């Protein structure tokens, strides 16, 4: 596609509910990143994929967070047993290269846990 596509754009979840957030990167992009942006803050790194391999998941805040990219294209970020502190915008970004030249971001999913 022309850009990084994320769905849903908004998600309201009841505390304890599981959610799945989808990222469709630019076709052919090797690198894919997930970031979490709390209200009034800058994005913070969650996890990184190079093709289907998850090379860095050091930013995932707990074992309730899980990400996958099974075929090296679409990625899903799953949050189990959501809690209020999970409320944030979740941004996905992709890059055509392995080296850090700056990525293309999607418009994010705003998750609100009530």
């Amino acid at each position, binding site marked *: 596609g022309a850009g990084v596509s994320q769905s849903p754009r908004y998600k309201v979840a009841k505390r304890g509910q599981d959610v799945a957030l989808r990222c469709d990167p630019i076709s052919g992009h090797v690198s894919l990143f997930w970031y979490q942006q709390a209200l009034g803050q*800058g*994005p913070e790194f969650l996890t*990184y994929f190079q093709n289907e391999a998850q090379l860095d998941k050091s930013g995932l805040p707990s074992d309730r967070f899980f990400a996958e990219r099974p075929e090296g294209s679409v990625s899903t970020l799953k949050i189990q047993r959501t809690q209020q502190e999970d409320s944030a915008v979740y941004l996905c970004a992709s890059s055509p290269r392995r*080296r*850090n030249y700056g990525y293309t971001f999607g418009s994010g999913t705003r998750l609100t846990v009530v």
Partner: protein
Amino acid sequence: AQTVTQSQPEMSVQEAETVTLSCTYDTSESDYYLFWYKQPPSRQMILVIRQEAYKQQNATENRFSVNFQKAAKSFSLKISDSQLGDAAMYFCAYGNSGYSTLTFGKGTMLLVSP
């Protein structure tokens, strides 16, 4: 660990005027990248400008330019001939030379008045 500091939570400028947004960072690396991203209300992070640390020449992109002071670890963004469409949140970000993640500052909200 790298840190990025944006000390101006909010800046104001009039149309056609020039404004400078400040950013400092801390790193022990010699080879790295610095970025300015713009985030309008649509939430998509848009790359404004990129600077490679090994290049002494300051990057420019049309009305946007940077003042990169490597020894001082300073990376400010100058916006010339400001336009109403420049109003947004601006984030300074640091990235290592490899594939790795971006570290963002907390952002500066730029207000543009007619």
